[in-house]
């Protein structure tokens, strides 16, 4: 069901489950992006993360990303699952799977999806270090939204 292509879960993500949602006979390529909790960021050791979401809007925004991708890469099929709650090092925070007859679109649509997630999907992470904790927002990784809808930028995470 199309409705389950986009999920916010409070339990561990099974990558295979997300991949299964995009499998089809027309596909020649499936790309997946698996976002995992990294131990070190800019010299600081992360102990664990906490993710919070505005769930109904987050699902709605994931579907909007799907609409945007269908407009640009019409032959693709997309599934995204994001986990929230407490995540330890190496735990999977997000899985994005894209299938397509040809590989170029599968790579491009996949990368577009993660960039848009980091811009418009209301999910926040709190970093817990040995010496403190902070909700991550514009002060570290992002920049404030310009007026209106956030635009695509080329940024790392």
């Amino acid at each position, binding site marked *: 069901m199309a409705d389950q292509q986009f999920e916010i879960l409070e339990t561990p993500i099974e990558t295979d489950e997300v991949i299964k949602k995009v499998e089809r006979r027309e596909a020649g390529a499936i790309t997946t992006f698996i*976002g995992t909790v990294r131990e070190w960021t800019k010299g600081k050791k992360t102990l664990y993360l906490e*993710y*919070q*979401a*505005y769930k*109904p*809007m*987050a699902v*709605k925004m994931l579907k909007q990303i799907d609409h945007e991708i269908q407009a640009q890469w019409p032959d693709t099929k997309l599934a995204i699952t*994001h986990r929230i709650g407490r995540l330890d090092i190496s735990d999977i*925070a*997000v899985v994005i799977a894209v299938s397509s007859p040809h590989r170029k679109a599968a790579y491009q649509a996949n990368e577009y999806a*993660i960039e848009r*997630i*980091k*811009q*418009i*999907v*209301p*999910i*926040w*992470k*709190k970093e817990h270090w040995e010496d403190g904790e902070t*909700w*991550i*927002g*514009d*002060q570290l*990784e*992002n*920049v*404030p*939204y310009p*007026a*209106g*809808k956030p635009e695509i930028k080329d940024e790392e*995470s």
Partner: protein
Amino acid sequence: MITVLLFAHLQEEAKTSQIELEVDRITVDALKKDLAQRFHLSQLEHAMVAINEEFALNEDTIQSGDAVAIIPPVSGG
């Protein structure tokens, strides 16, 4: 009445995830200023406001019954 949802650091600063405002109509801009003052919320100038799960502009008007959420810069993924 307008219900405002708070997330991330805003939730911790306000010590609540939800605020009820006794107003019928208010612009997004005015709402942000009002909340910043009354609840000492930081960096509200960097936050977006969602009305009924859609991003809104500063000039947009919130009406009684709308579901409003303050969306600080997101950091999912």
